[in-house]
């Protein structure tokens, strides 16, 4: 039959009972809104993770001495009975071809002073591979010269937060900063990276990078870091699929080099999967709550649709009889009521999308979660509401179609 006509008839019957129709679709609306909000927030989190992953460095891994598990998942200083060295880093780079770069680092936390201003920053001793692994560069100035790295010059690259805290809006390049009473010349201002993945307090831009050799001889040597030992090695793997394999290779290599029983797990290799999990966990509670609300509202909403359609069929029994008398077949009547149910539910779905946009934006604002609307989710929501309409509209539509024309015409 004529689709436009079907829609017109459906609309005129919905229009007559505006309030009733609205209350009927409320359940569908809430259910759809929950589903969309859920998917939007989850997609937002995923996008955020992807972006932060890219900024952390591509296919990044960190190697530490000591067992991860024995530390209860808290990153600590080098393990007690095994110490990583620059030689380990060189060996890893040499022996494992899947690796793009390996950057040995030492790290500390120190007060940085300029004139009468001071600021607590992370201080990293790095080599030329570090910025490659971390996908990092300078906004102003330059990177370290190879000679500065090998001589252990007192030069520094500083992060944007540290720069702002120490210099305000003023000139940064060429200035002198003091770290534990050692003077450094700032040669570059690092590009901004924001908060560390999975953290709202660890500011990656509150940082001072200095040559590894300088760090060891002038600063950290006093903290008991001896020889050419390093705290950790940052590694960048060429292909993501190789990550697990490389992880095993690194452990094998290190245990062999240090002649340690592999069972002891003296070294740990950490990729980003843990914080991804913790990041997604945040949403999981929210999502399971929304799933329950969505399921309940969609079922209750569907039953509401069924109920109101049955009422509508009863109210319009005479109309059904008349339509049959002038030649409507069972299928025509069936279609008419199905289209009405579908139209109601689809309207509910569309209103649900609008509600979802408000709720997502609200929860994003309140919880600080990023959101990401996907077109296919919105399309699916509309289609899905239509399907609910078919499912719950079927029984009422069939009962309308099966009416006897004479009896239907006789009803008051």
């Amino acid at each position: 039959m004529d689709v436009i006509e079907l829609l017109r008839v459906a609309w005129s019957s919905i229009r007559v009972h505006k309030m009733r129709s609205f209350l009927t679709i409320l359940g569908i609306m809430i259910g759809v809104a929950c589903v969309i909000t859920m998917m939007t927030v989850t997609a937002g989190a995923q996008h955020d993770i992807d972006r932060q992953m890219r900024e952390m460095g591509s296919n990044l891994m960190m190697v530490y001495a000591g067992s991860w598990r024995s530390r209860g998942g808290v990153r600590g200083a080098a393990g007690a009975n095994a110490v990583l060295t620059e030689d380990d880093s060189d060996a890893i780079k040499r022996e494992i071809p899947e690796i793009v770069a390996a950057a040995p680092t030492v790290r500390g936390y120190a007060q940085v002073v300029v004139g009468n201003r001071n600021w607590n920053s992370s201080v990293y001793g790095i080599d030329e591979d570090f910025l490659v692994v971390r996908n990092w560069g300078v906004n102003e100035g330059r990177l370290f010269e190879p000679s500065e790295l090998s001589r252990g010059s007192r030069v520094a690259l500083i992060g944007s937060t540290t720069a702002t805290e120490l210099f305000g809006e003023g000139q940064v390049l060429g200035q002198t900063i003091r770290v534990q009473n050692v003077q450094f010349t700032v040669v570059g201002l690092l590009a901004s990276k924001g908060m560390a993945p999975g953290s709202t307090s660890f500011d990656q831009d509150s940082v001072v990078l200095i040559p590894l050799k300088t760090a060891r001889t002038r600063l950290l040597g006093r903290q008991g870091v001896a020889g050419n030992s390093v705290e950790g090695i940052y590694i960048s793997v060429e292909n993501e699929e190789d990550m697990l394999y490389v992880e095993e290779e690194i452990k094998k290599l290190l245990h062999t080099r240090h002649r340690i029983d592999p069972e002891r797990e003296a070294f740990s290799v950490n990729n980003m999967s843990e914080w991804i999990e913790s990041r997604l966990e945040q949403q999981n509670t929210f999502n399971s709550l929304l799933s329950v609300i969505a399921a309940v509202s969609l079922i209750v909403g569907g039953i509401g649709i069924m109920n109101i359609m049955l009422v509508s069929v009863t109210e319009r029994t005479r109309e059904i009889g008349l339509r049959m008398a002038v030649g409507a077949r069972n299928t025509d009547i069936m279609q008419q009521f199905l289209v009405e149910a579908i139209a109601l539910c689809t309207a509910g779905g569309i209103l649900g999308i609008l509600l979802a946009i408000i709720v997502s934006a609200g929860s994003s604002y309140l919880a600080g979660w990023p959101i990401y609307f996907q077109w296919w989710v919105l399309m699916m929501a509309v289609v899905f509401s239509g399907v609910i309409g078919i499912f719950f509209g079927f029984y009422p539509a069939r009962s309308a179609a099966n009416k006897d024309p004479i009896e239907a015409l006789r009803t008051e």
Partner: protein
Amino acid sequence: MNDIISCENLSKTYVLGDEEVHALDDVSITLARGDYAAVMGPSGSGKSTFMNIVGCLDTPDTGNLWIEGEEVSQMSRNELAGVRNKKIGFVFQQFNLLGRTSALDNVALPLLYAGVKRHERRERAYAALERVGLKDRVGHHPTQLSGGQQQRVAIARALVNEPAILLADEPTGALDTHTGEEIMDIFDDLNQSGLTIVLVTHEYLIAAHAHQMIRFLDGKITGVEQLKAEAA
């Protein structure tokens, strides 16, 4: 073969508790194309039952019915819907128009189920309304029309698919005498132009418009009388 309605031993029985009501009891009658018949009889004598069965709205328990030579008593629900749509125009005592729907759309309804395109539906509905003298009321809703006008809309609806038979069950029953006469004038015109008409009425003055009178009593036809020199 000029028989348009042919009934053979039609029976319909309702069972209420342990009482059987023979609403239609072995009714046989044949009407020819162009006939104009009035059905009369006391209340409960089976007139409406007869009309509904002939109009394919209801089915007999036993017996056969042919419409334009086609046996309909064995048809499925869907086939009957097709016959109602194409061959029969039905006018009810209570008009049975759709509320909140314009006269034009009410009249166009049978065409919707005949699969006629929207544009053509409107044109033909307009023509049908013109035929019953309501072309200046096409946009009115039933509540904005008088009883006589509503019945004329219903007649237009019955005519719009150019049926072979027009059936009317007490078409003037809800109208005053004057308005009833106006409706009957329309029926007379339609019959003049060749349409077969069967109508139920309780009033002799209304029945007098027809050419034949079929008398019902207790579900049986007790007589068929010629009222006028029909072969005019």
